[in-house]
C-alpha cells in the first residue's frame, strides 16, 4: 500500500475497496486512511461516480456484422441435425420432432406428474393463503434503523433502541443459527 502523496494507497487498492474486494484488515486500514486524506476521498468519490455512471449507462446493442459473424461461426460449429433437413415420411420436420420418443417420453411423464399433483386433496398454495407468514415487526424496524444510522444526524433513538432492532432481519434466518 505505497503510492502517491507519500504513503497514500494506490488507485488499484481504492478500486478494490469500492468493489468490496479487499480483505477485512485491509479495508479497515483503507477506511482509516480515508478519514484523514481528502485526496484519497476525492479519488474514491471519482471511482464511485464512475461505477454509478457505468451502471446507469444503457447496454449497447451488438453490431449487426458482429452478430452475423457469430451466428455463422455457431452454425459451422453446431450444424443442424440431419433429421431436421430430410423429410422421408412426408411430414414437416417439426412435427416429426414432436412425435419422436425423445420428446414424447418426458412429456408423458410430466403429464402423469401433473395429474397426480392436481389430484391432491389440499393444494399447498391454499394452505399458504390460509396461514400467512408472520413477519416480525423488528425485521422492518431493524432495516429502517440500519439505514437511519448512515445519516449525518442520525437520531439517538435508532442508535440506542433495543439492539435486536439494530440487527438485520436476516439474522433471524433459522438457517444461520449456529
Amino acid at each position, binding site marked *: 500500500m505505497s503510492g502517491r502523496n507519500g504513503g497514500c494507497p494506490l488507485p488499484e487498492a481504492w478500486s478494490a475497496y469500492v468493489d468490496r474486494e479487499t480483505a*477485512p484488515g485491509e479495508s479497515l486500514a483503507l477506511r482509516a486512511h480515508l478519514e484523514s486524506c481528502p485526496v484519497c476521498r476525492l479519488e474514491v468519490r471519482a471511482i464511485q461516480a464512475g461505477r454509478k455512471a457505468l451502471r446507469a449507462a444503457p447496454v449497447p446493442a451488438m453490431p449487426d456484422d458482429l452478430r452475423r459473424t457469430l451466428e455463422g461461426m455457431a452454425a459451422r460449429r453446431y450444424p443442424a441435425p440431419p433429421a431436421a433437413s430430410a423429410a422421408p415420411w412426408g411430414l414437416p420436420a417439426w412435427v416429426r420432432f414432436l412425435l419422436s420418443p425423445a420428446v414424447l417420453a418426458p412429456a408423458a411423464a410430466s403429464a402423469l406428474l401433473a395429474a397426480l399433483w392436481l389430484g391432491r386433496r389440499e393444494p399447498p398454495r391454499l394452505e399458504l393463503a390460509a396461514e400467512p407468514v408472520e413477519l416480525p415487526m423488528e425485521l422492518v424496524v431493524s432495516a429502517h434503523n440500519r*439505514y437511519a444510522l448512515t445519516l449525518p444526524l442520525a437520531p439517538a433513538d435508532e442508535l440506542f433502541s433495543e439492539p435486536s432492532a439494530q440487527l438485520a432481519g436476516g439474522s433471524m434466518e433459522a438457517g444461520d443459527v449456529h
Partner: protein
Amino acid sequence: MSTKGSLLALFALWLPAAGASAAPETRSEKRALELLKDSLEVPITPYEGEMRVVTRDGGTERSKELSVRFFPPASFRRVVVDPLGVPAWTIVSDGRTQWAFDHRRRTAWRSEPADPDFKLMDPEEEYRLMADNYSFRLAGTREVADRECTVVEVVSRDTGRLVQALAVDDEYGVVLERRTFGPDGQAASEQRFVRIDLPADAEGWDFSFKPPPGAKVVLEPRQADFLPAEDASEEAGTALLEPGWLPPGYVFESADLVPYRGLNLLHYRYTDGVDVLSLFQCPPDTRLAFGRPGPAPRRLTVAGKPARLALLSEGKLLEWGVGGRFVLLGRLGPEVLRKVAESLRE
C-alpha cells in the same frame, strides 16, 4: 461513523457556497453550521462515560443506562445495564464487525454495519439536502456532565418546527446531549452523558468479542446494500412501486432487499437529509406481527382498506394491504403517512 469523518472535507468545501445560496442566511446560522460540522466529525480522542437514554413510544416512556467507550475512528463498546445495574446487552464494534450479546438469552448476533460510503446519494448531495430542508441556530450554552457546551438547534424550514437540539462540547466537539422532538413538538427522545472522561486513557481497551461458551451465535447473512429501485425490484421479482406523492423535502435515496425465511422484502428509503421514511413491499401471503409491548396498534383505513398504525420510538408505523402488503415507517404524522400510502402506483 466513517462517513461522518469522510464527509467533512466536502462539507467544508460546500459551506461557503451554501452561505452564498439560499440556505444559511445569518452569521449565527453559519456559526451553528460550523459547530454542527465539528460535532459530526469523528472524535479524534477516545472517551468513556455513562449515558442515560430516554425514549417515548406514544405515551410510554422508557429509559436505560449505558456505559460507553469509544476509540477513533469507529470502535466502540456499549453496555446497557438494567435497573439493578446488571448488564443486559453488550454491543461491541471494531468498525467493521459488530457484536450484540443478550446476556439474559445468552445469544450473540454478529453483523456488519451498513457502509455509508456506498450510498447512492453523494455526501455533498446529502448535506445540501439537509441544509435545504433544515436551518441551524445557536441556542445558548449549558453544562452537560460538568462540561461547557453550546446548544445547536435544528429547525425544519418547511414547518418551522424544532426537530433536534444538540449540546456540543466546546473543547472537543463531541455531542454530549441530543434531544429529538416529534411532529407534535413534544420531546421524543433524549440521550445525555451523565459522566464523561474526555479524553480518556485508552490503555488496555479491547474491541474484540468472543461469545461465551455455550452461547447461541446468530450470523447476519449479508450487509445492507444501496441499490437503485429498478435493480432491487428486479432482484426481488416484484413490480416497481413509486409513491405519487412524498412529504416536502423527501427524495428517494436507495433500495435494498431484506431477507426473511426464504422471502425478500423490498425496502425503499426516502430521506430529507435528517429523517428517513421507509417503504416496505412485502411478499403476498404475509402479515406483520406487532410484537412490541405498548399500546395496541390503532385501526384505520388506507384507500378504503383496513390498516394498522403503531407508535414506536423510531416513528409511526403504518401497515396496510391493497393488492399486496405494505409498511411505511417514519417520523411523520399519520395523515402524511396515509397520503403517501394512497399515492402508491406501479
